């Protein structure tokens, strides 16, 4: 039977109190929002903090509103609330799509966008019970010294598996992070690192307060694509967000593309602008962009599904996104 370790659950009244608790128990504490990622991971003994600090009731982390040409989304807003919010649907429909395609209705009501951005990376050899991990031998990411995915590897390549970060990257969003030292803002594109063990530039006692998305100028088109085996529940095997702008003649003036679920962090796909900007989205231009994206992706066997298939799906999703945008 999977069971939780003993811990103290704190329910602070405001952000300051939360930060104070996180600081006081530093090293033995984690924030918890919806718990849809953290609780299963604790049951697998991947995290065993002595203290949990609940974020879901903090007013500072709530609200979806437009301020100063920015859309501010509180980190504790649920994926369900975001996917149906009029301001989101109006300004950043791709974010609504991404939120609505995360897991299942129950989990979307519990799960938050903050938790989605801070989601732990996933791997066949990691998201397993203690019994199993012990049987097979621990790995770098937790308790061990080797990597089962890349034999001889010294770096963890567990898969970043969250659906909203690629969209946020394609929209040039940033995150507001609070710590006892104060508040800082970081573009989502700079938030992640390639270290699959802890892939974000955030300390475990910092709190992600809100996401800020610059209001897209009219004319920005966007698309979110996700590959998963079943039409519900499954984590992405590959996901992709594209934002593009076209002039009156239909020539691309701007193209931003981000992708995830293959490696340990979501990435902007480079060099696609060169192939597209100044051109109309004709099938051959689309193919050129797709080919460019394909060349940049090299999935590893961090999940059970075949890497060849996942890689082959990169250009397919790119083409689909661009066609949607061109339509």
């Amino acid at each position: 039977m999977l069971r939780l370790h003993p811990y103290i659950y704190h329910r602070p009244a405001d952000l300051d109190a939360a930060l104070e608790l996180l600081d006081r128990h530093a090293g033995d504490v984690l924030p918890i929002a919806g718990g849809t990622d953290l609780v299963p991971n604790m049951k697998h003994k991947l995290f065993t903090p002595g203290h949990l600090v609940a974020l879901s009731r903090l007013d500072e982390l709530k609200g979806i509103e437009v301020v100063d040409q920015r859309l501010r989304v509180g980190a504790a807003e649920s994926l369900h609330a975001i996917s149906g919010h009029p301001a989101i649907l109006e300004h950043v429909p791709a974010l609504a799509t991404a939120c609505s395609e995360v897991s299942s209705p129950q989990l979307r009501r519990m799960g938050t966008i903050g938790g989605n951005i801070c989601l732990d990376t996933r791997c066949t050899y990691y998201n397993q019970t203690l019994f199993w991990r012990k049987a097979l031998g621990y790995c770098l990411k937790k308790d061990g010294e080797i990597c089962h995915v890349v034999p001889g590897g010294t770096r963890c390549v567990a898969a970043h598996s969250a659906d909203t970060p690629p969209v946020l990257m394609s929209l040039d969003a940033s995150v507001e992070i609070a710590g006892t030292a104060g508040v800082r803002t970081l573009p989502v594109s700079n938030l992640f690192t390639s270290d699959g063990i802890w892939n974000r530039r955030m300390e475990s006692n910092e709190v992600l307060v809100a996401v800020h998305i610059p209001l897209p100028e009219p004319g920005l088109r966007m698309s979110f694509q996700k590959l998963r085996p079943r039409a519900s529940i499954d984590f992405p095997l590959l996901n992709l967000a594209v934002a593009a702008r076209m002039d009156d003649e239909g020539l691309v003036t701007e193209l931003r593309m981000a992708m995830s679920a293959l490696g340990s962090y979501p990435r902007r796909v480079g060099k696609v602008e060169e192939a597209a900007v100044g051109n109309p989205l004709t099938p051959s231009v689309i193919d050129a962009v797709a080919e460019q994206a394909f060349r940049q992706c090299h999935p590893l066997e961090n999940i059970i599904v075949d890497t060849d298939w996942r890689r082959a799906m990169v250009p397919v999703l790119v083409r689909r996104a661009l066609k949607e945008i061109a339509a």
Partner: protein
Amino acid sequence: MSSRYFGARIRRNEDEALLTGRATFVDDVQLPGTLHAAFVRSDLAHGLLRGVDAAAALERPGVMGVFTAADLGEYWQPGPLLVPPAPIEGLTFHARTQVPLAREKVRHVGEPIAVVVAESRYVAEDAVEDVIVDLEPLEAVADVRAALAEGAPVIHEDLGSNLAAHAVQTKGDYDAARATADLVLGRDFTYDRGVSAAMENRGVLAQWDERSAQLTVWDTTQAPIPIRNGLASMLGLSESQVRVVAPFIGGGFGPKIMMFYPDEVLLPWISMRLDRPVKWIEDRFENFFSTTQERGQLHEAEIALSSDGRILGVKDVFVHDTGAYDPYGLTLPINTQCTLLGPYDVPNYYSEFRVAFTNRPIVTPIRGAGRQQGVFIMERLLDLGARELGLDRAEIRRRNFLSPDAFPHDHEILFQDFAPLVYDSGDYEPALDKAIELIGYEPEGPVQSEPGGASPAEDGGEGTDGEDGEGSSRRKRLRGTGIVSYIEGTGIGPYEGARVRVEASGKVCLVTGVGTQGQGHFTSFAQIVADQLGVGVTDVRVVTGDTREFHWGTGTFASRGAVVAGNACHAAAVAVREKILRKASEILEVAEEDLMLTEGVVRVQGVPDLSIGLGELALRSNPLRGAVEPGTEPGLEATSYFGPRRGATASGVHAMVVSVDPETAMVEIERYVVVHDCGTVINPLIVEGQIHGGVAHGIGNAFYEELDCDSEGQLHNASFMDYLLPTATDVPPIRTAHIETPSPLNPLGIKGVGEAGAIPVAALFAQAVEDALKEWAPGLEVRDIPLSPNRLFALIEEARAGGGEEGA
């Protein structure tokens, strides 16, 4: 007899309790003072057990005991061989059955080594981690082919190899038939294993009561009576001292009739030793190791056809993976062997199988029980044969169907019940015609999207809109239709019984020995009895799965509940009806022929004032004082048994339309049709429910569920996060139609239906997907199950590169 309920589409008596959460499952039984068990399990697939050190665990507060094989003494015995092999000539068979706790060796991951008992499950689980197990790793063999290879590590050393069985069954002369054939087509096929994934895992609660010297065991078993009998004999108790209750059960599907699981043997023993109730509820992770699994087989098959598509003969040589032990004998491979023949006239047949032990969890039947594999092989051979001969897929089946006057039809080989494989009745063409009509199958080939060649992503093709929420752009999807036939041997013996009693309230109590796991027995059995006794269906209280209520029986398996227990209910109800009329005729002084039994009252035809209620009759049949005629039995009660001579053969045709996204290899089922013949139908609503559940099960097996086991016997996806079950979004609405060819083997004419939905789905998937891709990926052949988008993608790539022609 008026038939108000039999055949009626009525709602289930049990649903109110189930839907409002008031039904009692094993874990709902809470007894004061209960202790909780947790198992120390092997984390190696193969190893020598050098020692177990439980000292630290025993010191943990709340731990009441840790038991190993050594502690069991004489009580340690391998489990029974549940099904001795059928008397096939020249057969080799080695029984090696599971043990309560590993003694010298572990043979699969998850095999229990020790059991910890504590005040709570939490404490017990913590203490499991305190137990130090000294296991010396041995080379493991997880693959069935590798297990039979020369030099493979031997799992049961005394056998000298991993061969558990070898058998050949033949009919006619295949080689001679082959020599005259216009087309001989051979292929290799694999069918991989999966779990049964019942919603409720297994669980046992054992309570020994010292004062009354009574043992009560609540168990999620499909066979409470055999469990009672076995426990009594193992524990040296009288059967009257042991009561086994199988209350509501959240799905059985076969693994819950395996006997005895280690927990079933150990908990009663521990309860007697500690004089406290002991409970164990399996968790989902354990379920992937400690509950039996099924379906791993490798086939090399060949069909000999005439140019007009007639089957001249079939040859099939296969290997069956039985896992670490083989308590179920040869039931599975024999089912495969027999079911392969399907509804067809196969004059010559050569079937040979070998069964191999592997370092994987034990294999016993799961819904379909070996039949899936047989149907898959035969249907694939027919599809590929039809393709080769330029024949229509439905037509090749039609040409080979047994004709309606061929029954009873003797296939000249032995079935799993040791009886010759004889089909009782059937009429296959009407089902095919009906399915063709319902699915809209066009003989020359189904509606097809534009042929491939160009990029499939071009918009505006004839494909349908993508509907999977991945965007609104028009996307090409290729449509294909599949249509397959199958038969299912159901309703086998030996027997079941039922007791029907009219109570003083006028209500009826019906007791039977079978257990029930969601099949609707509380309703279908009540329908059978209500019609005989002229009472409302809700006035019949059905009691199942409690050995105190009924002493005799075997269990719920092989789609036999309705056939065997149903007919016993019928016979008992007929006997009670006779008693009612006899008694009423005495009291009312009217001839029996003039009596009618309706709405719980016996009335006299034409004399509206003269009547007597069933309750009053029941009271008068059980006088408290006075004298009765010598030999009079009290009450309005009767007990009857039914045992068919052999199984009844159900059959059906499944058809579906899929659309395949040729770029991603994602498959969507657009329509699904089942035309089914399970003899006379007691309740169409229940039959459809059984079929729907079965189809969902089959869809999982065909396209989603796969155990990812490595060569060391370690499973990589022991959770529902990674072992993908079909969800509501993946199972389409299913249209059903019934054909009724009553079975002559039982008075009610019933055939079983519990497994039917699951049996032909993989064969259907394969055909429909090939049809959809026939132009985009010419020559693509589906030979391995399960399929998944990434497997299908690889097949598409291979076929488009020209590799699909190989082996033709």
